[in-house]
């Protein structure tokens, strides 16, 4: 067969010979309206942002200096005093705080989570528990810590209270959502054996939600450790207090050491949580 007998000319008009990616929003008017709204929003946002660009520009060389002053990370402060003891103490305090807050938060979360599941609880209980979850989720741990410090005084106990309350909002919500999507058949099977409510929860619900909850509790431990670094800024103890002091004393190389240690510990927690989850399942 020779090439000439093969018609390679395009059948004009009948087939498209170019292809365009379909747009993300199919409706043309809606698409342009969305674009317009986005542009208008950003114009309004930047227009009212009141940024002092000169100040920011002036800050840039100082910023470079500032970042340079983080290196090398050391444990010796500007007076030549070795502060490694304080750093280790702060980190340990943060770890203790994170552990106790996670456990206390989970213990408090279980009844609230059960109460906040649509398929377990009567409506008044459901609404009450959802209310607790919503209010604990709304306020960041730092705001909770401000009030805890007011009530319990400076130190790690205030941080512990703030982190525990924060844990309830996270853990009870996810627990309730997980319970709501449990499979119906095991639940009915256990119910049909004549099990009481507690037996039903323990043998039908618990095995279905436990693996995910263990993974989540390690994740929350990780969050609580990271948050413990900031509750210290408002007086809640832990490594945050040490970090804030180092910033205020312009000992930035010590801040760098502290930040690096936080990063390393979070990294370790992340790896171990992966292993733990595999081991549990």
């Amino acid at each position: 067969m020779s090439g000439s007998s093969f018609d390679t000319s395009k059948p004009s008009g009948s087939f498209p010979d170019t292809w365009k990616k379909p747009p993300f929003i199919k409706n043309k008017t809606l698409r342009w309206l969305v674009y317009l709204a986005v542009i208008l929003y950003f114009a309004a946002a930047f227009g009212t942002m009141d940024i002092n660009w000169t100040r920011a520009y002036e800050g840039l060389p100082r910023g470079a200096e500032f970042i340079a002053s983080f290196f090398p990370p050391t444990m010796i402060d500007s007076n030549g005093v070795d502060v490694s003891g304080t750093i280790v103490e702060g980190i340990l305090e943060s770890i203790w705080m994170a552990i106790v807050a996670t456990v206390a938060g989970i213990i408090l979360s279980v009844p609230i989570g059960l109460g906040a599941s649509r398929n377990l609880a009567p409506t008044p209980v459901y609404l009450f528990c959802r209310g607790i979850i919503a209010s604990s989720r709304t306020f960041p741990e730092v705001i909770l810590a401000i009030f805890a410090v007011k009530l319990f005084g400076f130190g790690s106990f205030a941080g512990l209270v703030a982190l525990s309350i924060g844990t309830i909002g996270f853990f009870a919500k996810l627990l309730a959502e997980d319970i709501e999507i449990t499979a119906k058949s095991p639940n009915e099977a256990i119910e049909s054996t004549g099990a009481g409510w507690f037996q039903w929860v323990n043998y039908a619900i618990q095995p279905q939600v436990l693996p995910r909850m263990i993974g989540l509790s390690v994740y929350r431990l990780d969050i609580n450790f990271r948050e413990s670094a900031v509750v210290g800024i408002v007086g809640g103890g832990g490594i945050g207090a040490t970090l804030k002091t180092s910033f205020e004393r312009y000992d930035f190389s010590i801040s760098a050491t502290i930040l690096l240690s936080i990063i390393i510990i979070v990294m370790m927690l992340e790896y171990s949580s992966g292993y733990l989850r595999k081991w549990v399942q």
Partner: protein
Amino acid sequence: MPIIQTPGGPTWQRRTTPKQLIIWFSWLVGIAVVVFAWLRIADNDLLWVYMPTVGREATDMVSRMVPPKWSYIDVLWKPIWDTLNIATIGTVMAMILAVPIAFAAAVNTTPHRAVRAVALFIIVASRSVNSLIWALALVFILGPGILAGTLAIGLRSIGGCSKLLYEAIEEIDHKQVEAIEATGASRLQQMAYGIMPQVMPTFAGVAVFRWDINVRGSTILGLVGAGGIGLQLSGSMATLAWTQVSMILIAILGTVVISEYVSAKVRHAII
């Protein structure tokens, strides 16, 4: 699920005896660690000085905060708008930067293992440092204000967004990428036409999810001077204007509830 032979005949147990022992031992270690940690925290003399006054302090605080100074909301509209802008622009910035980092961190798209290690380090570093600490540092560099807050939110979000994105990239269907490759597409074109369409829904979902988190996060940045409603909060607390504090808390509650509602609606529309 083993059957154990006992003098009374075979009985069923959920786990074998060694497995049961391991579980009991893990519980023992776990409880010991928690008790030890608690003892370290309780080992604070001052704590027990404060304890008896907690009830009085709480009633005192509540009595000072009630009723909220409703008229103060007129002052709060601008800070609320600023807070939302910090969250939105910070999220947009993070999403833009998260895409290349996610592609560098995903096993199937990374150009080199060393690049992947760097990308993973960026992700962990950004995630480990809270936005409040980023803000604390950025206020030193850029001066107090919204810019520092926006950048802090952005820097903090890069890690979270990239992590979720690269996990989505690793879970894609490879047949589609191979199909694109078979047409002679370059690596970049494969990413754009083979991978991006698959991760776009996740991408949008992550953006909305992160925006919701960032609205919460940006309400407190003002505590270190980085703009938003937190500025009013720290100012009111410094001047002991507790009725204003309660009004601000109500405003934060409203903002967060609305942002949660919006993000839930958008997420339903996307998925």
